[in-house]
C-alpha cells in the first residue's frame, strides 16, 4: 500500500510505510489554479510516483520526495 496525503506527519504517526506527499488537503491530487491539462499532468506525475513507491522495497517508513 502507498499512502498519498498532504499532511505527511500524520501519515508517519499512523504508521504508513510508503508515503507520497501531495498538493493540498482539499485537492491532494490536483491544483485548481492550473489549466486542466497541466493539472492532469501533475496528477499523473503524482500517481506515477505512487506506482514507483509500490515497486520499491522499503525498510520501515519512507517518504518518497521528489
Amino acid at each position, binding site marked *: 500500500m502507498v499512502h498519498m496525503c498532504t499532511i505527511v506527519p500524520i501519515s508517519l504517526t499512523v504508521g504508513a510505510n510508503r508515503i507520497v506527499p501531495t498538493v493540498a488537503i*482539499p485537492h491532494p491530487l490536483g491544483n485548481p489554479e492550473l489549466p486542466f491539462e497541466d493539472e492532469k499532468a501533475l496528477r499523473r506525475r503524482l500517481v506515477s510516483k505512487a506506482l514507483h513507491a509500490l515497486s520499491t522495497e522499503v525498510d520501515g517508513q519512507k517518504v518518497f520526495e521528489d
Partner: protein
Amino acid sequence: MSKFRVVHYINQYFGQIGGEEKANIPPSCKEGPVGPGMAFKAALGEEAEIVATIICGDSWFAENIDEAKATVVKMIAQHKPDLVITGPAFNAGRYGTACGAVAEAVSQELNVPVISGMYPENPGAEMFRRFALIVETGDNAAAMRKAVPAMGKLALKVLHGEPLGTPKEEGYISRGIRQNYFAEERGSKRSVNMLVAKLNGEEYHTEYPMPHFDRVEPNPAVADITKAKIALVTSGGIVPKGNPDHIESSSASKYGKYDIEGVTDLTPDTHQTAHGGYDPVYANKDADRVLPVDVLRELEKEGKIGSLHRYYYATVGNGTAVANAKRYAEEIAAELKSDGVDAVILTST
C-alpha cells in the same frame, strides 16, 4: 441496611475446576464466593457480599461467544446484582477477553456496573475498556494480592455512588471518557507549565494522550507493476453523486464500496465528496483530485499498470474513531485480498 449484592465471573482455573484440560466446560453457577472470591469477601467487608460465582471454561467461552455471553448474563441477572466483578484476568488473553465480553453484556443489557482487573496489554483491556472499570494489575496471578484490594476498593466506591477520580488517580485503565471540569488555570498556562516541566526534565502529564497506533512491517515491493491489479481506497469521502450510503460528514460509522467499471473520469455529475472536514468545492468539481480514476485509466490503457480494480472503497476520515477505522481497514483488506488485488493506493485529504 442490607448488603450490596455482587456476582463474580471467573474461569475454570480460578473456579478450582481444572486447568487447560477443563477449559472447554460450559458456564455453571455456584452460590457464594469461590477461589479469588474468598479474597474479595475480605476486601468488600461488611458492606457487600458475593452472592454467586459464575464459572466458565476459557475455550468454551471463546468458541461459543454469543451463547456464552447470553448464558452468563442470564445467570448473573437471576441473582439481581448491584455490581459484577470479572476476573482479575492478569495477562491471560482468552480469560481477559471473556471478562471483557461479560462486562460489555452486563453493562449494556443489565445496566449494572462492572469491575475487572487486567494487565494493560491483555487484549481484553483494549477491546472492552469502555464497558468496565478495569483495574490495572500485574501480568500473572502472583499479583492477586495487590489486585483484589484495589478492585474491592473501587467496587465499594461505585456501589456507594461516590464520584470517581481520573483513571490515574483510581488505578483503572482509561475508558476513553472525557469529563468536563473547571480547572484552576487556563489551558494556555497549563500547557506552558507542561512545556517548562518537560524542558527541565521534570515529570508532567499530558491532558490528551495520543491514541496508540499499530506499526506493521512493510509489504515487499510489487514485482511487476505493469501486471498488477491496483485498487483505490480513500478517506477523502469520494462517493457517487447523492451519497447513496449516507456516509456521515464526520465521525463516519461506515464505508462504501463503489463500482467504477467502465468509468474513465469522475465528473460533477457522477461523484462528489461526503467529507465535512475540508472545503468540498474542489472535490465536488472534479473528484479525480482526490481519487485519481482518470489517470489510472490512462495508465491502464497504456499498459503501465495491469488493471484498476473494479471497486473502490471510501469513508470519511474526519473525527473517525480509530477503532472504527481499524475495523473498516480489516474488512476492506480482506475483500481486496480475496479479489486478487496486488496493491492499493490510499488517498487522504
